[in-house]
């Protein structure tokens, strides 16, 4: 599975230097590069070298490093490209606009009237609806194991499926593992 993932994932191909790219930062676990079809000149991607399709699968410690690099790039863009702003944008899942099965942080330099739309029309919810959502989210977050710094996998071990013990639907790690194992 590890092999297959790396062959078919475009980002993994870039990480493996099989596809040309404009790298701006690289370390053991992280790569940052320019998007050649960026929304604006200087549009960057920050990616984990390990293959994780969505943010929920990225170990906390890797996530911390990824966003730290993203922030530095955002500052570098401010300093060097004379832009008026930056967006940090993550699309998680197809309805959110995710187009490639590898977690990517977008850093988008912004100018006035640059044709990018990250605006929305507010939806009107009743007080009751708001309360329901509040309650559900509060409960939901309690079931998530937070603050535990997970061990970082070496890139070589990237696509290996976590060893799943018997699966309980309530258990976070197992839930992800269950989904992962369905990936060929």
């Amino acid at each position, binding site marked *: 599975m590890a092999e297959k993932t790396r062959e078919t994932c475009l980002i993994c191909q870039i990480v493996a230097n099989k596809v040309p790219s404009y790298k701006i930062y690289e370390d053991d676990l992280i790569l940052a590069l320019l998007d*050649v079809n960026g929304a604006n*000149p200087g549009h960057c991607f920050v990616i984990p070298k390990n293959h994780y399709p969505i943010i*929920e699968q990225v170990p906390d410690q890797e996530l911390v490093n990824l966003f730290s690099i993203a922030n530095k790039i955002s500052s570098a863009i401010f300093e060097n490209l004379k832009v008026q702003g*930056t967006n940090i944008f993550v699309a998680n899942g197809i309805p*959110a606009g995710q187009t490639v099965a590898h977690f990517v942080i977008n850093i988008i330099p912004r100018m006035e009237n640059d044709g990018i739309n990250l605006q929305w029309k507010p939806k009107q*919810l009743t007080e009751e609806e708001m309360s329901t959502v509040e309650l*559900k989210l509060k409960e939901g977050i309690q079931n998530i194991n937070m603050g535990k710094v997970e061990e970082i996998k070496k890139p070589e071990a990237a696509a290996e499926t976590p060893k799943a013990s018997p699966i309980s639907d309530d258990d976070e790690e197992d839930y992800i593992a269950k989904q992962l194992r*369905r990936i060929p």
Partner: protein
Amino acid sequence: MPEEQVPQQQAPGQPMPGQAPQQQMSEEQIQALQEKIKQMSPEELKEFQKKQCIFCQIIAGKVQSRKVYEDENVIAILDVNPANPGHVLIMPKEHYSIMPQMPDSEIGHIFVVAKALSNASLRALEVQGSNIVVANGVAAGQRAQHFMMHLIPRKEKDGVGFHVPQKTTPEKELQKIRKMLSESLGSKAEETTAKVAPIPLIPKRKVVEAEFKEQKPKKKEIVKKEIKPKAEKKKESGINLDDIAGVLGAK
């Protein structure tokens, strides 16, 4: 991106996390205030900003809000003008205007919270995805003076019309930008374009088309030639995005 839209239905006594407090001031008052601000020390200025910041008021518990998560450094509340139900604002308790002001440790932590909340909303709200959006600067859509991150649960056809267009930047400019940014980062990363004509990095739409099959992406005007063989390969094998969608709770 509007961090905050003007609330259209503001129930009395409700918080307005979406909006800075609006007070009517006369010209003279404004001028006097500007003078005062000029003379403040950085510490005083920060205190002043805090007092003026509606989000600092929320954090201090002086303004009501719907908190869904709170720890020592971070708070997450429901946006009163949500893009979708479950739209959450995640912010540091400390007052920072933009992300580059935040220390690394706090940035890391806030995104770990975002990950956990995204996970929670995928399950608790039965949505199929999420967007994380940060705006630094007015041009990027920032409206509040308090740094925050938006976590927006997403479903198919939910009417959230984010649009990140694809533009073509000339190769020379890309090379120039690459050099500037990598030098600024003190990075030794190299361009790996070799002597090949630039191949589009992320032929996003194409990949999607190949992998998502039925779920047609909105835009697909992207380079076909170079990546075709790869895309075809993907049809037969490889990661099945339906399964990833499964992770996100999609059909």
